[in-house]
């Protein structure tokens, strides 16, 4: 009998498929609906201290092989969002709070509130590629990744997982920095900085001009990043980027991920995505003789 349950950074997950941040996570009701649809855990929208309206539309571009988005980190601020967190947690969802801010103190205060309201872990959004003056600068500097991780680790008791950007020259160095800062796990990767242009209108489509590419188009980049990180750090890695099928998840496990996050696939496979992907992982494991997900983690490195 195959077992999909995984233990990761002290968390016991019923399966290795998590909802990625920024997808269907504005309200407690939506988070709960995704958890009930079969996700192992749900990651919240990225939340900062004060409300942010985000960018104007167009905020998404649909492509054949993925999607570019520049939402602009809209969120109601941690104080208002706590009621959404409580609603999902009280109804039984395992929730990971995604925090961001303008400085270390803001990250730390948001993380503390998440913990107080029942979040099981904190994901640090250090790498949102389309927030001016936020995100990318942190994710590109090893000192900043280490410093921000340490700042949050020092104020919460739950696991802390920085989410790294693929828009860097050497992601391995940033993984090492995250571990040095005390990270319990690493989430890799965020979206890839991208652009779409309307030929007829002769202008970029996104109101913010630049956005983040997600979906199947970036799976090879995500796999490469997870593989590089697994070579240099021994803390768990959560793979993100283009996971649409169970086989995609298995490829991430073999590159070194202990679990995966699913986002853009919600558009193509709907709420059933988690159950379908879990069933596909299970089929693969039965066919290939794996009894636990952990047996697959990192085996592509041998």
């Amino acid at each position, binding site marked *: 009998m195959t077992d999909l349950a995984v233990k990761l950074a002290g968390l016991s997950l019923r399966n290795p498929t998590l909802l990625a941040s920024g997808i269907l996570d504005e309200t407690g009701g939506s988070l709960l609906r995704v958890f009930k649809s079969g996700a192992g855990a749900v990651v919240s929208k990225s939340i900062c201290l004060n409300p942010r309206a985000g960018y104007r539309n167009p905020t998404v571009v649909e492509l054949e092989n993925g999607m570019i*988005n520049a939402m602009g980190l809209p969120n109601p601020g941690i104080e208002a969002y706590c009621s959404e967190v409580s609603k999902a947690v009280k109804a039984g969802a395992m929730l990971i709070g995604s925090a961001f801010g303008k400085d270390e103190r803001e990250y730390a205060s948001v993380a503390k509130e998440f913990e107080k309201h029942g979040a099981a872990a904190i994901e640090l959004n250090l790498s949102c590629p389309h927030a001016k003056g936020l995100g990318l600068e942190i994710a590109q500097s090893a000192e900043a990744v280490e410093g921000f991780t340490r700042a949050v680790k020092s104020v919460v008791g739950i696991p802390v997982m920085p989410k790294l950007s693929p828009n860097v020259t050497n992601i391995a160095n940033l993984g090492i920095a995250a571990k040095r800062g005390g990270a319990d796990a690493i989430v890799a990767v965020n979206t890839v900085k991208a652009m779409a242009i309307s030929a007829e209108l002769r202008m970029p489509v996104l109101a913010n001009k630049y956005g983040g590419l997600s979906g199947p188009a970036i799976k090879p980049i995500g796999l490469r990043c997870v593989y590089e990180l697994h070579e240099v750090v021994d803390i768990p890695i959560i793979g993100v980027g283009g996971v649409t099928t169970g086989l995609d998840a298995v490829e991430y496990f073999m590159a070194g991920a202990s679990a995966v996050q699913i986002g853009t696939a919600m558009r193509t496979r709907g709420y059933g995505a988690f159950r379908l992907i879990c069933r596909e992982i299970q089929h693969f494991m039965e066919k290939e003789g794996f009894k636990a997900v952990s047996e697959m983690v990192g085996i592509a490195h041998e």
Partner: protein
Amino acid sequence: MSNRHIVKIDKISVECRHTKTFRFRAPFEAEPGQFVMVWVPRHDEVPMALSYIDGLKGFTSHAQGETTNALADFGIGDRIGIRGPLGNSFEIIGRRILFVAGGTGIASVIAAMETAVKGGRKVVTALGAKTKDELIFVKRAEKVGEVHLATDDGSEGYHGFASTLAERLLESHKFDQVITCGPETMMKKVVSAASKKRIPIQASIERFMKCGIGICDACAFGDRLVCTDGPVFDGEYLSACEDFGRFRRDESGHKVPVK
């Protein structure tokens, strides 16, 4: 491949002082009740119900904010982006259908009224607006059935709300279904009146929208999404939904009261 089509505006009709219908050739078929995301270049992209689904497609825009005011200055031949058709559609049930619309809400249901009549159903409409000049699509509605008008100021038809008119029609006539679109407080009254009589009801809901394709959660409505679970919801869900007639979300996702 992207489902965002850049189209030229083929025809513009002025419906009333602040409201225009923009017609365009679209490479898609749509169902009554569906909407499109209209990209007004250099301004924003906003959801608009399709008020025409046969031949030249069209949407009807009430100029009330920065983007819709900018759109009002667009002329024939100007280009806009259209993403869609998006969302679900009205499902016509039974033989006699009461349509209740307020303000530009009629633009969301007029295509359903025409489709219902084409399918041999009988349509009765309660149509309301603030004042006589703001009653739109009256002739189109009269072509498909009996129309009862209401204005808040009494300048035309019944002096009062379309919802009150609807309550009276529900008392005096027998209907198999009610379909409504307009201000949410109006729809709430209509849903409650129809539900009391155990008549199936569907309402088209509006919320601030970003992706339009069911991923960003900006248009969260209860535990559903207006863009993909809606915009049409049935009375059963609406009666149970804690947000209906009470709360919407602003651009940041903050819960604010429905006006």
